[in-house]
């Protein structure tokens, strides 16, 4: 793989290689001096066309601990509105001599388009509603550490599927690693065509969270944006929580050792109750530290191996 644009770019074996490297990187995090020389002399640009705190800082720290020169560029607002084409924007940045371009963009497909225009290695840090491959890798890594393996495990993904790049990458990644996936959402937040898609890709769909939770080996809650209400996707936050939230009562339906994941930022009280977010089985903070290790591993595989 030259770029990481989609989980489709990586094979199950490559995913396990990334996880092995990530485990080593995890150990680095525990050291007093958290620095490896692997990417010394390499330049990584974090180009974020959309607000992000955790993903951007995770990539920044990951790059720095690998000794890369990391530069953050915030290019919020579409380049279209500024009169510059996206192609011109990224070519300008890459003309400065960039090895890796980590890109976050509000438009689906942007990372793929950019990869066709530039010579640098492109890592998709989230493109619109399409994919967020490093999030899926860190989620799978977290779950694999907790559960030993994903093979044969049942993972429930619950929330706003329509607008979620986390869902799209995760369903690809988890099924690739042998997990059974059930996605749960109200019909209005299920992507169009999910019927044939799920059949072909081998995952299940449900409108009933209570039916799915008791059998789940892990549960992944997705953020629900409040502005979806004005879009008419559901009537109220209260009704959403009653229908699809991981409430305190529903926590009891869950196996006691089933990890609870959330990509953040959490809407406590909406899709996830505080009791669930802070439960012993919650993996939310572990996801963050795993994220760093996985992003170090991804940068390492894509950028350090280049010369050899």
């Amino acid at each position: 793989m030259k770029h990481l644009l989609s989980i489709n770019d990586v094979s199950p074996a490559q995913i396990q290689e990334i996880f092995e490297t990530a485990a080593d990187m995890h150990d680095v995090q525990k050291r007093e001096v958290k620095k490896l020389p692997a990417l010394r002399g390499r330049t990584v640009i974090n180009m974020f066309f959309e607000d992000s705190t955790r993903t951007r800082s995770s990539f920044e720290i990951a790059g720095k601990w690998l000794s890369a020169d990391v530069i953050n560029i915030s290019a919020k607002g579409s380049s279209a509105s500024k009169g510059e084409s996206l192609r011109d924007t990224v070519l300008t940045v890459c003309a400065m001599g960039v090895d890796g371009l980590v890109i976050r963009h509000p438009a689906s497909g942007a990372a793929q388009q950019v990869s066709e225009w530039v010579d640098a290695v492109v890592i998709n840090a989230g493109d619109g509603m399409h994919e967020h491959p490093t999030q899926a890798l860190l989620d799978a890594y977290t779950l694999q550490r907790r559960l030993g393996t994903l093979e044969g495990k049942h993972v429930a993904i619950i929330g706003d599927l329509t607008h979620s790049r986390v869902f799209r990458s995760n369903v690809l990644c988890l099924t690739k690693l042998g997990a059974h996936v059930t996605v749960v959402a109200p019909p209005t937040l299920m992507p169009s065509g999910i019927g044939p898609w799920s059949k072909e890709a081998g995952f299940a769909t449900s409108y009933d969270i209570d039916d799915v939770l008791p059998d789940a080996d892990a549960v992944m809650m997705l953020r629900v944006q409040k502005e979806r209400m004005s879009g008419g996707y559901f009537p109220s936050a209260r009704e959403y929580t009653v229908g699809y939230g991981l409430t305190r009562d529903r926590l009891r339906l869950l196996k006691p050792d089933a990890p609870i994941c959330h990509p953040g930022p959490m809407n406590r009280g909406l899709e996830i109750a505080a009791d669930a977010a802070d439960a012993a089985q919650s993996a939310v903070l572990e996801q963050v530290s795993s994220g760093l290790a996985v992003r170090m591993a991804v940068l390492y595989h894509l950028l350090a191996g280049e010369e050899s």
Partner: protein
Amino acid sequence: MALIITGASVLGEKTQDLYVDDAGRFVAEAPTGAETVDASGLVALPGLVDLHTHLREPGREDAETILTGSRAAAMGGFTAVLAMANTSPVTDTAEAALRVFDLGREAGLVDVQPVGAVTKGLAGEELAELGLMARSRARVRVFSDDGKCVHDARVMRRALEYVKAFGGVVSQHAQDPTLAGPAACCHEGEISGRLGLPGWPGIAEEVIVARDVMLARHTGSRVHVAHVSTAGSVEVLRWAKAQGIDVTAEVTPHHLILTTDLLEGYDPTYKVNPPLRPAEDVEALRVALADGTIDAVATDHAPHARHDKEHAFVDAAFGMLGLETALAVVRTALPDLAWADVARVMSTNPARIAGLSDHGSLDVGTPAHLVLVDPAASVVVDRADSVSLSRNNPWHGRSLTSRVVHTVYGGRFTVRDGLLP
């Protein structure tokens, strides 16, 4: 100069000489002092008429001008094009229409017939000065807010009623904005779901087509549906025609071949409105064109400057080039369609819908607008070869059947041996 065109198969049927006099009209007998043109092996059709062209002038002369668009039209075998109103400023006054009309006559390669906006500024609220545009020297007969739907039912009703006074027609861009908003850019279905692109469901078109045929019935008016793209719209049209409702419809060349799956690479070349649809819709459109449910092929030629396409998919401009390739695309999509039917859907019917009585036939006494086509040619399209100012050509690299050899406009060659003079 008078012409004697020999050896051409007229409408793909019998071989017959065609005579054009000094005044540029078809005549019954060979004129004296005429130039003889050997058209053996070629098919003669009346000059093509495009109901739906974006020439971008005034406003975006970097993407296309009336002159360059006229060149592209001539290369495609067209002798008349209807220039859509969504320019800057919008063609919503007689003065604006006249300017387009006159620039077209100045270019002198095709009849450039302005389409008037239905509503002021394409805002969908107040009627534009339809009657003044109709009564002007430009004789505007087709009105459209194309690019936007006349979505308010009351406004659409009034427009349909009002244009009856001067034999006008409203060409509707059928897109319910509450079901397919401005961001909608991918046929809503499995592919939009997977790609995470905002869906543009077929139903957003179909509800407007259904509403508008009922409005046409209620008002006793004529309505035209632009760029029909779904099997559902075809069903509604078929029903409406069976009821005797006065409705006509067009399909674009690209909707006769290209399908939604082309969006999988997020290449904005394939971003168009309405979006490319699945193969089932493409098949239904082909059948409807062949059986007359859809009356005409119209290009929706939509040139864009390169930088307006080099954005993320959802931010890139809608539209693709079409004039130069339209005839070959229709031939490729429907190889069994008789040439007489090609003439019907690309010349006679569009001329009738637009009220262009000088176009659409090879009859003696009418202006000599014709196209001579090599039916056997196979051409691989190269976007660099286009005479348009723009390069957003979805046919690049594809092989298409048939080639325009000569275009004659009012007795004068506008394209000869595949080249502009």
